[in-house]
């Protein structure tokens, strides 16, 4: 075990997989200089410019070329820089990558990883701050992964690269510098398995990505008040770990889903709806969601903060869910 950043973990993951499998390569803008956040630093020197390819500013072609390169037998790792720019390649990801295997009757698979750093960082405004994981979870053919710790960014990126499916891989921009323990030995995290970041008996908080930290912080505060929150970091949004969530809510009888994305039609709706469908009679309080208001992310800090889910808001939502008044008259 060593302490490593979320960023360095991703660099290591890609390097290990490129070492292991010559079919793996990466393509995107400015990768030769380390990528926009430094997550590719040193890789071009190590693996050459053919396998760490600097591309033109051509998001549609980056994604489309990755589809072709995957169909033709390689395993491309696509860098989209900001998930917002992946919107310049939506046809290529949704109509081509996600559907090719199916449309062609299984003649080929599309093993590509589409890395799309998401979320709010600081004063990045409306075109550099979005979290659209709900979109990708809605699209048949796609796997959706959103690591929240350095160890998970190592282990999940490696698994994503080994997957034969197109994987939308959402790293959080505010986590690049986050530190955590990371195994020295090869570390693979299975896709589709949640991580129970904290155990608790009073309510289940389901979250992912940048909100993992905030939820754990909130859980600390809640514990001081005697409320023991179980915090489940989904890590994978499709397929999400329903068994883990259902088992937890079965026990705690209360669900709070927390995410950074806009609440309306966010992926929290799926989880809340699913739990309400399956555990209605067991719930001691209504399911509850906490996400951003339906506003674009602004630049000025006080306005930007209005779109942020804070630990205080999580604490408040958890308190409301566990308050006796929230219990269902039964």
């Amino acid at each position, binding site marked *: 075990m060593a302490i490593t950043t979320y960023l360095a973990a991703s660099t290591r993951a890609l390097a290990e997989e490129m070492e292991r499998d010559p*079919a793996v*390569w990466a393509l995107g803008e400015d990768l030769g200089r380390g990528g926009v956040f430094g997550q590719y630093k040193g890789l071009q020197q190590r693996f050459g410019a*053919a*396998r760490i*390819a600097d*591309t*033109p500013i*051509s998001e*549609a*072609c980056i*994604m*489309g*070329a*990755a*589809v*072709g*390169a*995957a*169909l*033709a*037998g*390689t395993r*491309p790792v696509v860098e989209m820089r900001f998930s917002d720019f992946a919107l310049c390649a939506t*046809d*290529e990801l949704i*109509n*081509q990558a996600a559907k*090719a*295997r*199916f*449309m*062609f*009757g*299984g*003649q*080929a*698979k599309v093993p590509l990883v589409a890395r799309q750093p998401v979320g709010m960082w600081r004063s990045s405004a409306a075109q550099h701050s979005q979290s659209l994981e709900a979109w990708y979870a809605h699209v*048949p*053919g*796609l*796997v959706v992964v959103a690591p929240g710790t350095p160890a998970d960014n190592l282990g999940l990126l490696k698994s994503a690269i080994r*997957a*034969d*499916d*197109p*994987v939308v891989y959402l790293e959080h921009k505010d986590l690049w510098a986050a530190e955590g323990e990371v195994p020295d030995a090869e570390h693979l995290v299975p*896709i*589709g398995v949640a991580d129970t970041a904290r155990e608790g008996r009073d309510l289940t908080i389901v979250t992912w990505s940048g909100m993992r930290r905030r939820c754990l912080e909130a859980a600390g505060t809640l514990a001081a008040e005697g409320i023991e929150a179980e915090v489940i970091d989904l890590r994978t949004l*499709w*397929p999400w770990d329903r068994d883990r969530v259902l088992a937890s809510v079965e026990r705690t009888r209360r669900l709070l889903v927390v995410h950074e994305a806009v609440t309306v039609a966010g992926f929290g709706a799926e989880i809340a709806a699913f739990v309400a469908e399956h555990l209605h009679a067991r719930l001691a309080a209504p399911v509850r969601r906490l996400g951003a208001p339906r506003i674009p992310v602004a630049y000025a800090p006080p306005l930007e903060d209005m779109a942020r889910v804070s630990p205080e808001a999580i604490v408040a939502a958890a308190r409301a869910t566990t308050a006796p008044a929230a219990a269902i008259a039964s």
Partner: protein
Amino acid sequence: MNGPADGGPPPNLDRERLLHHLDTMWRIRAFEEAALRGLADGHVRGAIHPSIGQEAVATAVCLNLARADLLLSTHRGHGHTLAKGADAQAMMRELFGREGGTCGGKGGSMHIADFSVGMLGANGVVSANIPIAVGAAHAIRLRGGTEIVACLFGDGAINRGPFLEGLNWAKIFHLPVLFVCEDNGWSATTRTADLTAGEGAAARAQSLGIPAQILDGNDALALDEAARAAIDDVRAGEGPRLLHVRTYRITGHTAADAAPYRDAAEVEAWRGRDPIRRLADALAHAGVDAARLEEARTRAEAEMADVLANAAAAPWPAPEAAYADVQDIGDPAVRAF
């Protein structure tokens, strides 16, 4: 190389080779006509975009490719697919949505693909095949392969962004791609010239440093030679090439489109330049038997009549197949809701 209209075929015309082209062109036309009958009979359920009149392009490009070479096609891709070597029977079954179709009935005409012959797919999105082709070529380069990629698209496709992004990419990475713009003058129901600034595909390619030429798409002899030369260059590692081929779509945009927006005289003029008849005439001038030329047609028609009947008799795919081939992780066969 000149066709007979320009004073007779060249003396060294390769009869066997060109008879193969003729046979292939007849097979394409007969396939399209069979598919139209299949549509009229209610067997073909989705839209089809016939390539009648454009057979020489498919033939000249695809017959000059090796089987291992890759091909990316469009919504108007039956001819390309057949010429690349796909099985007509499996193709017709695909159009019928039946078991044994190239894609098991999942794709239909607009997503027809046969990876076993290097045909990596038609596409329902105009221009989307260009970046895919470029990426396939990139993969070939990465693994040191010697195959090349051919990418066909229409004249309407050059006004979408992926055309620029893909050509730029192919050139800067010096990739083995042959781009072919099959310019039939129309983008669905609109005349492409009205929508297109400048001289079109060749001029745009040249502005990117990609050698390009403009060709008569109904002259199978000239096209064959140009395609072969371009493919040789691409295979020799000289980077991408573009052929801008002028031809015409004899039918409407889809089989359902009567194309009332076109001048009857324009259609007639192009019927007069039928690429199959021109090649047959050239072969006749070169001394090929009339019977052999007629046989090319009748054999193709008989084959496709069989194909049609056989497809109509094929079973439907099992409904559960709808849950297969989606994804491994998060497989809907395990969890679809």
